């Protein structure tokens, strides 16, 4: 009997139904169950290693934080921001500054126990002067997500910051969309949904693409999958129940992340992509992110939040993936943007010396530094923004 591809490849249709009698009929289900059980045992025994690999790759091991310390940043790096929301210091009793940005703010290369991140170091320095700093960093954070953080914190007097310090990163202008966890975060807050909608309506004329994207985000999060994760639905309970029995279900996110990471590495290997491989801007995404930055600036002004952006430090020795002319154009645009919106901002790209940077895929890492880089950045940010962060700092000086 000639068998066709469709009979063996499960995505193709029209396979012949199994035939046979009695025990022969049971052979296929038994093999199926055995292989599935084997997968479960493999996943179960490797889950911890897979998670550890991901944490290592993200350089975001929260177990190295002081367990006795009240969190002063989102230690989940955007994966479970709700959990850390309650730790944002009360803005009604302190001056609150949020430090928002991408992975540079939450990763320390070769981190040792007790080493702190930029936001925590700034908090150490400024708390005695009545200013509390809280870190909201996530890998590849883009401007739409930064806007979400601004609108979400600004919506509640407890979390409404006096200053919003934002680390602007050129290559994050290639990223768009809210990550699924932040979609869930937005969906779970009806008042924030309303603010999101109103903001989109208010800026529709000035920033048409970004506000269209905001409305599209709303459409996206009205889909059942986000609803299901936002509420304690039957679906959620079933998933949790099954997760307690089947390791494949329990560790599906770790497994998914591990597979994605391996595919990413495979792609880099096959296409010879390195951390220094040039990544030209993507015109439409770039424009969209510029508009989002515009909304952030306008909205900060409207809410009387001091927006304090800075261009993030880069490794001076590492060949970065930016096309030099594009990066130069970005910096000159950002300078114009700063004056147009009357922003107090700082370019820190040359702040951290080469010896304070990490290594990635065998090459000098151009964006993530060692602990010393965090100390240096925290000191610099506290110094340059001091006048805007500490009450009466200017007159004291």
């Amino acid at each position, binding site marked *: *009997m*000639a*068998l*066709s*591809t*469709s*009979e*063996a*490849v*499960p*995505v*193709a*249709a029209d*396979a012949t*139904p*199994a*035939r046979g009698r009695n025990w*022969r*009929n049971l052979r*296929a*289900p038994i*093999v*199926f169950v055995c*292989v*599935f059980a084997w*997968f479960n045992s493999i996943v179960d025994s490797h889950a911890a290693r897979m998670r550890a690999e991901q944490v290592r790759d993200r350089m975001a091991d929260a177990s190295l934080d002081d367990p006795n310390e009240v969190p002063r940043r989102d230690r989940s790096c955007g994966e479970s921001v709700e959990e850390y929301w309650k730790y944002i210091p009360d803005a009604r009793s302190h001056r609150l500054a949020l430090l928002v940005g991408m992975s540079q703010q939450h990763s320390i290369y070769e981190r040792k126990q007790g080493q702190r991140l930029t936001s925590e170091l700034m908090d150490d320095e400024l708390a005695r002067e009545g200013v509390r700093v809280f870190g909201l960093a996530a890998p590849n954070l883009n401007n739409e997500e930064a806007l979400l953080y601004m609108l979400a914190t600004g919506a509640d007097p407890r979390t409404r910051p006096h200053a919003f310090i934002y680390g602007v990163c050129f290559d994050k202008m*290639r990223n*768009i*969309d809210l990550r699924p966890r932040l979609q869930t975060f937005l969906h779970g807050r009806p008042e924030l949904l309303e603010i999101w909608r109103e903001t989109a309506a208010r800026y529709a004329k000035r920033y*048409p*693409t970004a506000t*269209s*994207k905001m*409305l*599209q985000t709303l459409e*996206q999060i009205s*889909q*059942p*999958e986000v609803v*299901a*994760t936002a509420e304690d639905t039957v*679906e959620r309970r*079933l*998933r949790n129940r*099954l997760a307690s029995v089947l390791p*494949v*279900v329990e560790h*599906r996110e770790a*497994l*998914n992340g591990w*597979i994605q990471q391996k595919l*990413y590495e495979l*792609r880099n290997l096959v296409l010879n992509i390195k951390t220094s491989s040039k990544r*030209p801007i*993507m*015109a*439409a*995404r770039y*424009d*969209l992110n510029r508009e989002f930055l515009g909304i952030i600036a306008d909205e900060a002004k409207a809410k009387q939040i001091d927006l304090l952006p800075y261009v993030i430090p880069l490794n001076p020795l590492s060949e970065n993936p930016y096309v030099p002319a594009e990066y130069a154009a970005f910096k000159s645009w950002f300078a114009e943007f700063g004056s147009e919106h009357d922003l107090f901002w700082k370019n820190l790209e040359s702040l951290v010396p080469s010896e304070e940077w990490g290594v990635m895929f065998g090459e000098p890492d151009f964006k993530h530094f060692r602990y010393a880089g965090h100390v240096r950045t925290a000191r610099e940010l506290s110094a340059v923004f001091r006048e805007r962060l500490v009450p009466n700092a200017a007159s004291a000086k």
Partner: protein
Amino acid sequence: MIFTSYTYASFLLATFLVHWCLPARARPYLLIAASYVFYASWSWPYAFLLLALTLGNWAYARFVLDRPDGEPGPLWPGIAMNIAVLVFFKYADFALENVAAVARLGGSDWQPRALNIILPLGVSFFTFQGVAYLIDVASGERSFQRLRDFVLYKAFWPQLIAGPIIRPAEIREQLSVPRVLRYADISEGARRILQGAFKKVVLADTLATQVDLAFLHDASPNMFDTLVGTLGFGFQIYFDFSGYSDIAIGSARLFGYTFPENFARPYSACSPQEFWNRWHMTLSRWIRDYLFTPLSMMMRSRPALQPLCLVIAMALCGLWHGAAWTFVLWGVWHGSALALQRTLLRGVFAASGNAARALQWLLTIGIVFAGWLVFRAPSLHDLGVHLQALFTLRGGLRPALIRESGCLVILLISGFAMLTTWLHALPLPRFLAGPWLRPALYATVLVSVITMDREATAFIYFQF
């Protein structure tokens, strides 16, 4: 209750177990109850709409159209009942918008308030099914005598939301004879469900995350975004909808019912007509039998106008997909392609030989995928932006919206899909389909579905 959710899996398993434990006469009632639970889990008030329409259709067919004296009553009130429901829920806002647009052309500043009616899930499917049933009965087919059978025919959940659009003749026999539990049905049903889940969760949803970015409203895509995005969408909608159909067919099979197929490797088609014989087959034949055939009968005295019937029928098919001009345009595009196949391009599509087949296939794929661009564009304005990007070669081979890795994902999945289409008939070594490797492969597929699952995303065809 989305087909790829854990809730649906539990619902299916529970119904399956109870169904086969009950005495044969009670089983249809259980399926009816389960179907209404399934529908009401989305919106219970609309379950009453479904019930009312079901009773209306049954009564109209039974007492008006299928009279003992052999003289059927008028057909149009029955059809109007179904179409009125469809028009009210699906097209009221669209109609208002367009009336206002016409009024604005005449200088009026009338701005109607949007009714914002929530579309009952599956309304396009169950109203079409109702129309077809009434026409069939008026044409001489026997009506359902037992209300129970008709209620189950209309409400049976696997086909309720997005088809396949089943004709009474295809299921009447199955509804009247008690179903028997057979190993082959369970095995085949489970396989089709797994296959559908794989298509939806692993392939369609992976494509969707990339494709959606290419069609961002008001953005400025490059030519490459438009090309890759359209390619990706063509496969996304195929995997999404054929995956849904697989789960529907598989679910019904678990209860002993066999549904008609809805897809047969549509992207291997070598002409627009062949494409429609392979794509959403149950809708295609509905359009052919209940729209195109009556239209062409009406115009049989004017053969020159026959191609126009195709365009009208397909334009209505497009409108059925959604209340937007992009859908109508998509229908007109396909109608025109079908008309051209019968007229100007008859020679091209009738030629034989390998080279001719290759050319026909390329032409058909080009037509179909160009159609997907029209179908997926968020608005006519966005369609214009995409066409501009395409014809001005904007950006060359550099994307502006889809990341390079996203393009790679789309190209890989599209390549895989075409490979399985082309290799469909090739013989494979026996061991690949043997009793050991095949179940192992299915277990791997199940693990991949669980791993890639993004918590039950809605199927594209739910919006239609």
